[in-house]
């Protein structure tokens, strides 16, 4: 019993540590004006949340968060940052009070909502009954793939994933339509440079 309680305490400490780090990074992002530092800190924020997802046993989500949040969106935000100014404009005092009121109200509502949540890992919670158990039971016979997340994503919910692929493709299409193809705008930049010289 002592070992079990010790493990529980260690998990609780890790959770508190990670969430505390997230809070500190969040406050730092809110107080900063340098866009470069904000982009870097948001990458760190994603990396810490990925670590926290691992602690919650959601490894697939953690992997996606680390690859997308910490990897590619940091690079994309850096690219977008180069098109604009390096620092954000300082806000007036009145403009600062409204966001903090919104944050406090939303946070209070979320904390109030957690009272009704089932305990973490509760086998009787709605997430762990109905289709969830069904997939767990049927995947070994029907799909024979060890990673049930992949089985649900690509086979049981293959049609949804097709739609998601379409969404990603459409997003790229929209950005290309707005900003133009990379090579043409690059040529335009080179021409501007030449005109200057």
């Amino acid at each position, binding site marked *: 019993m002592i070992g079990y309680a010790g493990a529980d305490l260690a998990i609780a400490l890790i959770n508190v540590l990670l969430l505390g780090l997230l809070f500190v990074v969040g406050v730092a992002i809110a107080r900063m004006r340098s866009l470069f530092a904000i982009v870097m800190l948001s990458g760190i924020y994603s990396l810490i949340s990925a670590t926290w997802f691992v602690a919650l046993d959601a490894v697939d989500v953690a992997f996606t968060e680390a690859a997308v949040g910490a990897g590619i969106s940091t690079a*994309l935000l850096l*690219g977008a940052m*180069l098109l604009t100014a390096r620092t954000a404009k300082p806000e007036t005092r009145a403009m600062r009070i409204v966001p903090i009121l919104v944050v406090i109200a939303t946070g209070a509502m979320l904390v109030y909502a957690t009272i009704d949540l089932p305990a973490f890992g509760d086998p009787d919670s709605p997430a762990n009954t109905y289709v969830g158990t069904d997939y767990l039971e049927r995947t070994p016979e029907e799909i024979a793939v060890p990673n049930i*997340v992949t089985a649900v*994503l690509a086979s049981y919910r*293959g049609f949804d994933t097709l739609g998601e692929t379409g969404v990603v493709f459409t997003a790229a299409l929209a950005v290309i339509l707005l900003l133009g193809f*990379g*090579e043409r705008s690059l040529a335009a*930049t080179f021409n501007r*440079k030449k005109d200057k010289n």
Partner: protein
Amino acid sequence: MAGPRTDHHVVLRIVAKPLIPIIALFALYVHFHGDYSPGGGFQAGVIIVVAIVLYALIFGITPAMRAVPPVFARSLAGLGFIIYASVGVWSLIMGGNFLDYDVLFNEEPGGHMGQHYGILMVELGVLFAVAGSMLSIFYAFAGRVTEIKDEDW
């Protein structure tokens, strides 16, 4: 990018260069091992793009566009979506429902080859679509400025 002005990034360049093939190889592992461990086509596609973005960051956007042309990136995005959808059409032709992998290879009931290769093929479609789309978005943003200025690092 070669020139006296960028020479003090030589350590960054030497350290980052051997990482690029390892990142690309890891992406392939993530894709083909997606049945057994966390990961799959989406994560693999993003990781491949990270390798190319790293190349663009240390060697400049123009060499990156020469290595992986933007027209290739956006064709890859379309091709990925077509691969995914055509697996569905394939299962329709074989007499099953759309994206029903059980019928792909006319197996006996209880065979799992259709499921296994069906999942691998649609994940390949996802990989192509995600990698092509993300790279196109990166090129659209990064292609508008020539390079990151030294004082911005």
